[in-house]
């Protein structure tokens, strides 16, 4: 009786766990399934009642048409340019600073380090008005530099922290050994430390690219014309229109998400570290 009750409870427990897993999967995948389903439909089928989960007339047309109806090529190009430039600049300056902080000997280093950490919590929206005013004065509105400068405000701090963390794992003795062998400090950094921390630098680059690619607020406020819009601004500009081509919109959404999904898969290993250092905003 005792053992029977025990196994029965075990079965119930296992069942409830699998039921919970099923609910979790359903909850996570339903919106994605709907997105995919819509993106393979013809325009008229998107308004079928009741809606079809599996398109009757499966078509790839939304994926073809999206490029014609909106300048998506331009949007993607803008996003790539801005995200790449931001990443390169941020990682360059952050690598120097990260190494400096990692091997720091000067007074007040700790204070500066905490300062860069606190800036992580800084809401971008607070910067929007000053940026807009100053950048209009310099004629920078609606240009790549305006976005790149703005993106530095969130990219640089987390790059510094991530890279500092990676440099910290490399023993100081290596720098010292290199310097005894006649390297200057800068050379020791470039030829010894950087090669050793390449995986970490690579992860930081991907994180920076990911955050810049998905950024929306600055892109919305600092670009004015479709030819300067990034992907996020480009897609969302379609939502409020009188006639929404949901199938093409979903196709565009999926295409825009492909880079972020790939990056997330690559970065899974570094996810927790990135999260707590503010690389990934909720």
């Amino acid at each position, binding site marked *: 009786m005792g053992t029977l009750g025990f196994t029965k409870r075990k079965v119930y427990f296992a069942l409830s766990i699998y039921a919970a*897993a099923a609910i979790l999967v359903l909850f996570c995948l339903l919106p994605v399934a709907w997105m995919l389903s819509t993106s393979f439909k013809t325009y008229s089928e998107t308004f079928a009642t009741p809606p079809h989960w599996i398109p009757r007339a499966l078509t790839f047309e939304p994926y073809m048409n999206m490029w014609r109806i909106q300048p998506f090529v331009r949007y993607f190009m803008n996003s790539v340019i801005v995200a790449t430039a931001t990443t390169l600049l941020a990682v360059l300056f952050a690598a*120097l600073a990260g190494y400096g902080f990692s091997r720091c000997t000067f007074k007040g280093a700790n204070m500066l380090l905490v300062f860069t950490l606190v800036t992580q919590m800084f809401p971008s929206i607070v910067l929007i008005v000053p940026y807009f005013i100053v950048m209009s004065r310099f004629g920078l509105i609606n240009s790549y530099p305006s976005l790149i400068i703005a993106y530095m405000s969130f990219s640089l701090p987390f790059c510094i922290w991530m890279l500092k963390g990676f440099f910290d794992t490399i023993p100081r003795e290596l720098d010292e050994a290199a310097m005894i062998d006649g390297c200057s400090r800068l050379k020791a950094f470039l030829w010894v430390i950087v090669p050793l921390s390449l995986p970490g630098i690579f992860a930081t680059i991907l994180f920076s690219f990911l955050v810049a690619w998905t950024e929306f607020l600055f892109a919305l406020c600092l670009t004015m014309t479709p030819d300067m819009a990034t992907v996020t601004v480009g897609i969302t500009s379609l939502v409020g229109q009188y006639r929404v081509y949901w199938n093409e919109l979903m196709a565009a959404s999926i295409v825009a998400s492909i880079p972020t999904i790939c990056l997330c898969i690559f970065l899974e290993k570094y996810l927790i570290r990135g999260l707590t250092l503010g690389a990934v905003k909720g």
Partner: protein
Amino acid sequence: MVTLYRNKKDFSWKHIDFSFILVIPAISILLLVLVLPLFNVIYLSFCRDTAQGDTIFSGLVNYAMLIHDPAFLVVLKNTFIFTFCSVLFHFLLGLSAALLLNTDIRARKLLRAVALIPWMFPSVVVAITWAWMYHGQFGVLNFILNRLQIIPSFVPWLSEKRTALAAVIVASSWRGFPILMMMFLAGLQSVPKEQYEAASVDGATGLQQFRFVTLPNLKPIIAIALALDTIWMFRYFDLVQVMTAGGPGIATEVLVTRIYKVSFHYFKFGEASAVAVIMFLILLFFTLIYYRVALKKTR
């Protein structure tokens, strides 16, 4: 300068710390793009907006106006409701999912990958997708809920004042819970196995083990996750802006969308700056709590 150092190599390192030189460029950039604008926005918040779009220094007028503005109170209330509910659902969903993934269920890796999917999409894509699912006439959610006889007729979720905020919160919960799940999962996996063994030897039931072993071990991570998530949700712009832009009326208006609207639709930079400063101060408070919690953990 350069030649001077090159001639006396040893001299330069003794007097100017090399690591300090490395840090200077990044710190100067941060001062330029973060600290300077912050002072600017504080100054602007004391300025009156004129009809010409100029700003004139005039003390506390903006703040005085905001205090007496009933709409601003609604915005504050919405922001706190949105933040609180999002964080609560992230916590509940994230913890349940993490506990589920911590059992010896089959295909655990696959399940974890699936649970991460919502977070892999950019916020704007999540917003558009959910807006389409909430569509008043053709939205799939209306069909599902109607078929399950939960709602008698279709609801225009996002354009109905009573449901809009809840609808946005649901989308926010969907997108945000995987992050907390990952944090909790990492925490669960670091709980020493011996403690569970000891507990089961003492005859603790599963629930008691959760209460007396899992939760105390997870507490520091829960605290950090909640604090971080509160900060994230408090300043979350993309989702609300794309789904409702604060509407209908101001039913879903939060501080972030308010600042955006006042700056770029009404062009009242002074008023927008005042709202921004208030928001900054509230966030500063959260941030201080976060560091209290985070530092406590490391000590």
